[in-house]
């Protein structure tokens, strides 16, 4: 492959290596982001990158994306380079060869494609990057990221021995906790943003003061001409009428399990248009299922005498620019878990997110203030992974009635200022108790002293706090303590009113085990430090005495036994599985050259487990304080003083 060798001197005079004076900081900083996943992930990446660009205007951002999901990035004027992975050129020939020769992947000869791949890669490796971020967190992307010369790389990579690895803490967190689907409550956009800003702070320096006060405006995000909407039939004139409210329904969700059924969409459309004369509706989507759903909505509107109302069906008719223009002009978007919620988040359009199927809205839900998420509050066998289960019952919990009620509550906030409870609102619209099978959340951007990022606050006052929600908050708190270097207040979002007997029972079960966890981790740390000390005595680092070797073996066996103890504890208390997963990922990523160094790093791993377990203990203490009975001071009854003026 003919690419220029990596030359660190090319970047040695850059602000990354040199002193970080103001003038130097204004030099360009080249970063490359590998994002080979879907459009939703690309949009979340763009949100993180925009935040960084705001703080570091000197950033030169390049993105590697797949062709079919490149439109969003191509429409961002602040992205310097969009490098499209030409999979359509490479992969069909390989698949054809596999089919023709009836060969498995292992038998395929990739040499014919390596040449074109190297040619595509050449401009990307011509000059070293300051920073490379692999935000795909997949197998293929780890190989690609490993090819990129950079001063520092984040995310999955391949090491010299071709094994997979990741050197940074947030990537360990994603691998061990997010991808293992353990409960945690930090949004993916916040993880990416924090990882990126921390990297910039460490390798580039603090942002300039003037940059921190600049406001980010959603209209600066995409380069979508104002005239885009004028192309939509004669109804286009309606878009300019400020008295009209546009509501967008994104009918499909990319996966059947996450999609709402067509009769529910139709019922909701009838409900909104019949009661709100100021509203217009636009139907969006792609493909056969969405076409069918749109036809059903239109048919139901006709049957209910609402055919004269302004309803646009644009299924299969939107390119990215038109899609973004419509979402940007709409007041509300109703959608399942699909990329439109990220697009609407970017464009400042409020969202009603129907969180159906295997979705974790705390990680990928709508971002910003004032969005609503409806999550089924019933056990769905398919979502729970029960063998043989085929029908998602969870979608039945989200009825058109409760979606309408949530929207009407959200859209009238300006009037009731959220002083009216959701339950009271249900009574006012004549639908009390229809929220029994659903949990409803409202998104809010936390202040930085509360931990920052997006959080989803319960809208209903009657729902109990679940142990999974509680442990997700604890895990999020641990991550901030580990990787942000500061700790928000404990249990700040847990109130005494949310306590319930089930939660108390679960917390009591865990409270003893957390002490065991701390003891195991402390023993792991001590043993690792012992290994480090023993190994450091050997000055040659190449030859050791038999008795030295025996001592080290004994300590290594002890460390293995501690590993097994942790496994046993997690079997008994599955809520501690994030600790085991993280310990294994981190141990996999030890990078020491000798036993002493490995011992030192191993001790740091155990130290992280100890600090995380202590966060659990603090949360348990703080939460159980809320439920502890308190002595109530007897009210002093004041006896009226005798009236002397008789």
């Amino acid at each position, binding site marked *: 492959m003919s690419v220029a060798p990596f030359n660190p001197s090319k970047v040695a005079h850059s602000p990354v290596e040199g002193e970080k004076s103001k003038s130097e900081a204004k030099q360009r900083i080249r970063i490359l982001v590998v994002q080979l996943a879907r459009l939703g992930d690309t949009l979340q990446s763009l949100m993180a990158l925009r935040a960084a660009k705001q703080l570091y205007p000197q950033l030169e951002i390049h993105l590697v994306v797949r062709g079919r999901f490149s439109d969003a990035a191509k429409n961002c004027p602040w992205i310097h380079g969009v490098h499209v992975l030409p999979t359509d050129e490479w992969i069909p020939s390989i698949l054809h060869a596999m089919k023709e020769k009836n060969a498995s992947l292992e038998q395929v000869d990739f040499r014919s494609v390596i040449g074109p*791949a*190297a040619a595509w890669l050449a401009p990307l490796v011509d000059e070293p990057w300051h920073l490379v971020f692999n935000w795909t967190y*997949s197998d293929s992307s780890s190989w690609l990221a490993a090819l990129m010369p950079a001063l520092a790389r984040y995310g999955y*990579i391949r090491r010299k021995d071709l094994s997979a690895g990741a050197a940074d803490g947030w990537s360990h967190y*994603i691998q061990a906790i997010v991808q293992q689907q353990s409960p945690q409550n930090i949004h993916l956009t916040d993880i990416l943003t924090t990882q990126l800003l921390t990297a910039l702070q460490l390798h580039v320096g603090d942002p300039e003061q003037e940059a921190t006060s600049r406001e980010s405006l959603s209209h600066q995000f995409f380069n979508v001409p104002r005239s885009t909407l004028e192309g939509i039939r004669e109804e286009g004139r309606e878009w300019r009428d400020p008295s009209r409210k546009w509501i967008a329904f994104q009918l499909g969700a990319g996966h*059947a399990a996450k999609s709402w059924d067509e009769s529910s969409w139709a019922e909701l459309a009838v409900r909104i248009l019949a009661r709100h004369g100021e509203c217009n509706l636009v139907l969006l989507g792609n*493909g056969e299922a969405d076409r069918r759903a749109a036809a059903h909505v239109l048919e139901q509107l006709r049957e209910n005498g609402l055919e004269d109302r302004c309803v646009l069906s644009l299924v299969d008719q939107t390119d990215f620019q038109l899609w973004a223009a419509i979402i940007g002009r709409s007041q509300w978007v109703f959608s399942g878990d699909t990329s439109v919620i990220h697009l609407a988040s970017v464009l400042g359009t409020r969202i009603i997110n129907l969180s159906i199927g295997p979705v974790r809205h705390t990680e990928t839900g709508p971002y910003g203030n004032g969005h609503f998420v409806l999550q089924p509050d019933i056990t769905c066998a398919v979502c729970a992974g029960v063998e043989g289960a085929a029908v998602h019952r969870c979608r039945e919990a989200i009825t058109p009635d409760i979606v309408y009620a949530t929207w009407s509550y959200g859209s009238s906030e300006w009037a009731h200022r959220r002083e009216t409870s959701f339950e009271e609102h249900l009574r006012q619209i004549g639908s009390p108790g229809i929220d029994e099978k659903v949990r409803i959340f409202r998104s809010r951007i936390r202040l930085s002293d509360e931990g920052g990022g997006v959080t989803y606050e319960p809208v209903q006052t009657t729902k109990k706090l679940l142990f999974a929600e509680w442990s997700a908050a604890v895990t999020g708190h641990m991550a901030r303590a580990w990787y942000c270097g500061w700790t928000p207040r404990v249990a700040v979002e847990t109130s005494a009113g949310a306590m319930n007997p089930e939660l108390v029972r679960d917390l009591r079960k865990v409270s003893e085990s957390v002490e065991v966890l701390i003891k195991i981790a402390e023993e792991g740390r001590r043993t690792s430090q012992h290994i480090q000390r023993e190994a450091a005595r050997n000055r040659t680092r190449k030859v050791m005495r038999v008795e030295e070797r025996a001592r080290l073996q004994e300590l290594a066996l002890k460390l293995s036994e501690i590993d097994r103890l942790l496994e046993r504890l997690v079997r008994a208390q599955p809520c501690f599985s994030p600790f085991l997963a993280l310990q294994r990922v981190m141990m996999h990523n030890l990078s020491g050259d000798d036993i002493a160094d490995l011992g030192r790093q191993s001790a740091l791993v155990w130290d992280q487990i100890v600090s995380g377990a202590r966060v659990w203990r603090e949360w348990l203490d703080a939460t159980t304080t809320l439920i502890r009975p308190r002595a109530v001071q007897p009210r002093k009854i004041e006896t009226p003083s005798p009236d002397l003026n008789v």
Partner: protein
Amino acid sequence: MATDGTLLQGEVTDSATSPLLDGAHVERLLAGFLKALVAEQVTDLRREASPGSAEKSKTQEASTGSAHSNGISNATSEEAEALRPSLRFIRGGKEGRA
């Protein structure tokens, strides 16, 4: 990691670890990349072809996993695997959500 800060620095490289200095290594990385890409594509095609899977849109959805759903499967040499026993754990990780 909070305790010593090294985990915030990412993988800091220098000329000695640059992938481009070793042509054979570059070729191995490229081959690994293409192989993994095809494997992901095959999985994706199977998922799209499976009954109940919704039709994918051109601009608005679809394709391979993401940061919160991908696992990573390690195609490594036996030697590397022996050096890193925890690979088995990562191999056992989920390849993606339903």
